[in-house]
C-alpha cells in the first residue's frame, strides 16, 4: 500500500471515524502522541516522541473502580476502557515495549483486564526510523529501526509518501478503511533500500546478564549511582518501566481505587509498614532499576526490559547514560574475572 504525504491527513480522517486515533503532534520543541480530532494535526517529521505511548494503554493514573455506600450496602463500579484505538506512527521501539509489557499484565498468575482490554482494542501503525537519533540503540537490545515485532502495520518513509506493510489481521482491518492504492514495485524497492541504510551505534551487551548475575554486591554500584539524584525522569519516560502503586482516594465510605505509576528510584518505593526499607539508599535503588531491566526481567520473561529508545539518556537531569552504565558494569565484571 502507498500513502502519499499530501493525502495523509485525509487518510487519518478516515481512521478517526472508527478509532480514537493517537498521532504525533507538536508541542513547543517536542513531539508527543496525542489523540487527534483531525488528520491535519499529525506531524510525522520527528525523532521520537518525548513521552512514550505506554500511558495510552497503561495510564499514569487510572481509576480501577469506584465505590459508594448505598442503603447499607456498597455499590462498586468498574471502568474498563474498551474503546477502539489506533496509535499512528508509533516507533518500532515503542511497539516492542508493548510486547514486553504484555508479559507483566498477562501471565499465568495474573491477567490485568484494564491493560489487556485496551491492548486488544488497539491497532499499532508503526513508522520506521530512516534516521535514528544519536541516543537510539534499539538494534543492540533485540529491536531495530524497522523492526516489525508488535506492529500491525509498518510505514516506511520513501520521501513523497509511506510504503505501508500490513502485518496482522488488525492491520488489515485498518488498511481496508484506508483504501490506499498498492505500492509499485519501484516504491517497494526504495523502501527496502531505506531499511538497509538505517544505522546506529552499537552498544555492547555481551556478557551483561552474566555480570549482573554475579554482580549484586559489586563495588561498581558505589560509583555508578553517585551522580543520580533519585528522581523518576528515567522511569516515567521509559516505555517499559511499569511499576505501580495502588491507593484509595476516599471520603468516608465513598471513593475510588486508583493505580498510579510508581518508580523504584523513590525512597518510599519499598518502604515497609514496619519502617524497614530493603533498599535504604540511592545505591540500592539505582541497582534495582538496572537489575530489573537487564536481569530480573530477563530471568522472568526471557528478554531485557529495555527497547533502546534513549529517552532516559535524553531526560536525565545529571546525564546518567544507560549505555555507559552497561559499559561500566561489563568493565567491572571483567576485572573481577581477572582476579
Amino acid at each position: 500500500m502507498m500513502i502519499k504525504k499530501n493525502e495523509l491527513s485525509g487518510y487519518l480522517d478516515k481512521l478517526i471515524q472508527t478509532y480514537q486515533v493517537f498521532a504525533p503532534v507538536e508541542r513547543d520543541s517536542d513531539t508527543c502522541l496525542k489523540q487527534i480530532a483531525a488528520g491535519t494535526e499529525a506531524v510525522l517529521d520527528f525523532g521520537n516522541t518525548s513521552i512514550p505511548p505506554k500511558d495510552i494503554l497503561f495510564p499514569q493514573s487510572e481509576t480501577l473502580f469506584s465505590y459508594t455506600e448505598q442503603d447499607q450496602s456498597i455499590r462498586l463500579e468498574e471502568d474498563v476502557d474498551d474503546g477502539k484505538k489506533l496509535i499512528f506512527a508509533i516507533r518500532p521501539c515503542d511497539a516492542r515495549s508493548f510486547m514486553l509489557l504484555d508479559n507483566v499484565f498477562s501471565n499465568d498468575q495474573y491477567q490485568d483486564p484494564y491493560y489487556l482490554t485496551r491492548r486488544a482494542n488497539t491497532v499499532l501503525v508503526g513508522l520506521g526510523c530512516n534516521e535514528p537519533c544519536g541516543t537510539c540503540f534499539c538494534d543492540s537490545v533485540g529491536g531495530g529501526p524497522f523492526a516489525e515485532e508488535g506492529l500491525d502495520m509498518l510505514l516506511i518513509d520513501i520521501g513523497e509518501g509511506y510504503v505501508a506493510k500490513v502485518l496482522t489481521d488488525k492491520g488489515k482491518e485498518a488498511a481496508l478503511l484506508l483504501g490506499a492504492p498498492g505500492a509499485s514495485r519501484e516504491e517497494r524497492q526504495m523502501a527496502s533500500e531505506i531499511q538497509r541504510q538505517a544505522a546506529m551505534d552499537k552498544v555492547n551487551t555481551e556478557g551483561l546478564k552474566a555480570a549482573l548475575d554475579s554482580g549484586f554486591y559489586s563495588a561498581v554500584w558505589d560509583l555508578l549511582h553517585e551522580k543520580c539524584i533519585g528522581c523518576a525522569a528515567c522511569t516515567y519516560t521509559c516505555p517499559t518501566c511499569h511499576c505501580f502503586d495502588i491507593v484509595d482516594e476516599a471520603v468516608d465510605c465513598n471513593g475510588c481505587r486508583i493505580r498510579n505509576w510508581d518508580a523504584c528510584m523513590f525512597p518510599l518505593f519499598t518502604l515497609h509498614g514496619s519502617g524497614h526499607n530493603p533498599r535504604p539508599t540511592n545505591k540500592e535503588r539505582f541497582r534495582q532499576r538496572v537489575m530489573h531491566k537487564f536481569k530480573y526481567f530477563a530471568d522472568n520473561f526471557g528478554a531485557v526490559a529495555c527497547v533502546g529508545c534513549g529517552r532516559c539518556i535524553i531526560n536525565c537531569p545529571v546525564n546518567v547514560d544507560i549505555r555507559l552504565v552497561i559499559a561500566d558494569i561489563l568493565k567491572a565484571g571483567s576485572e573481577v574475572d581477572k582476579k
Partner: protein
Amino acid sequence: MQGVAGLIQEAAGKLLLDKQVGLVIGFSRGSLPLRSAPCFIRRPDEAEKLVWDRSCENNLANYLRRYRQKVAVVAKGCDSRAIVALLQEKQLERENIYIIGVPCSGMIDRKKVKRLLGGKELLEIEEKREKILLKAKGISKEISSRELLHESCRACRYPNPVLYDQLIGEPVAQWSAGDFNEVLAFEERTAQEKKERLAEELSKCIRCYACRNACPMCYCGECFADCSTPQWVGKGAQAEDNLIFQAVRVFHLAGRCVDCGACERACPMDIHLSLLTRKMVKDVRELYGFEAGVDPEAAPPLAVFSANDAQDFLFEE
C-alpha cells in the same frame, strides 16, 4: 575555557594529593553534545576528567549533604549561594566543605537550542567569543551566547561565587540587575488568567520529582508529596494536584530558594517553574529585604521573628 578547566584540575589534584579532601565534586564531559555531568574525583590522577564549559548547569551543592568527610566542590555563583543557604540552615559544616569557586558566564539552555533547531538533534557546538555555532543535521545556526542562556542565568545577579576557599580565574562583570519583568507581567493578569496559565504549564507535569530532587534546598527526609498518612496531595499526575504540589514546594522554599533555576533545568517536560519560584524570590525580597544564600551570617527571614516583620499581607481589609 580550557584555561579555567586546567586550573580546576590543578586545584582538585593538589587538594587530593595533599589529602586536604578525600573527594572533589565537579563536572566531567557528558555523553551528549552540550552536556556536562556531575563527577566525583577521589584520586589525583583522575582530576584531568574535570571540565568547565557552558553546560555545567547542575547545582552541585545538591550533593554535599550526603558526605560526612571533608569534600571539595566546584561552585558557580548559584552553587555557592546554595552552600551559604545550607550553612545558614545548619545542614553543612563550613570546615567540611572546600569551595573551589568559579566565576560563571551563564549556562546554555538545551531546550532553547532544541527550539532554535526546530526540534532537530544537536550534533555539535562551537563557541566563538560571544557567539555560539550550533550544528544539527542539515542546519547550522549562529547566535549570541547571551540569548541562549537559561532564563535563570540571564537574570542572575551573582555570577561570581559569594563564598569560596579558592577562586579560579578572574571575577566576571555582573550582567543583570535581576529584574522580575516576567513576574510583574504575570501579577498584572486576572485571577482567572493566572489560573489558566498555571494549569497549562502544570498539565505537562509527570510527577517525576526531578525538580525537587535537583533542588539543593529540597532536602526534607520525607517530602509532603510522598507522605501517605496523611495524604496531603493526590499522587496521580492530575493538573490540579500537580499545581498543589508545586505551589507547596515553592512556598516551602520561601526565603530559601537561591534562584539557581536547577528545578527548571531538570524538568524533562519543559515546565516553566521559575515563574513560580521567582515570584516567591521577589516577594521575599520586597517583604523582608532578604536574598537567600548571600550572607552566611544572616538568619533566614522565615526562621526568625521580628516585631517589625511585614504583616500587612496577612490581612485583607
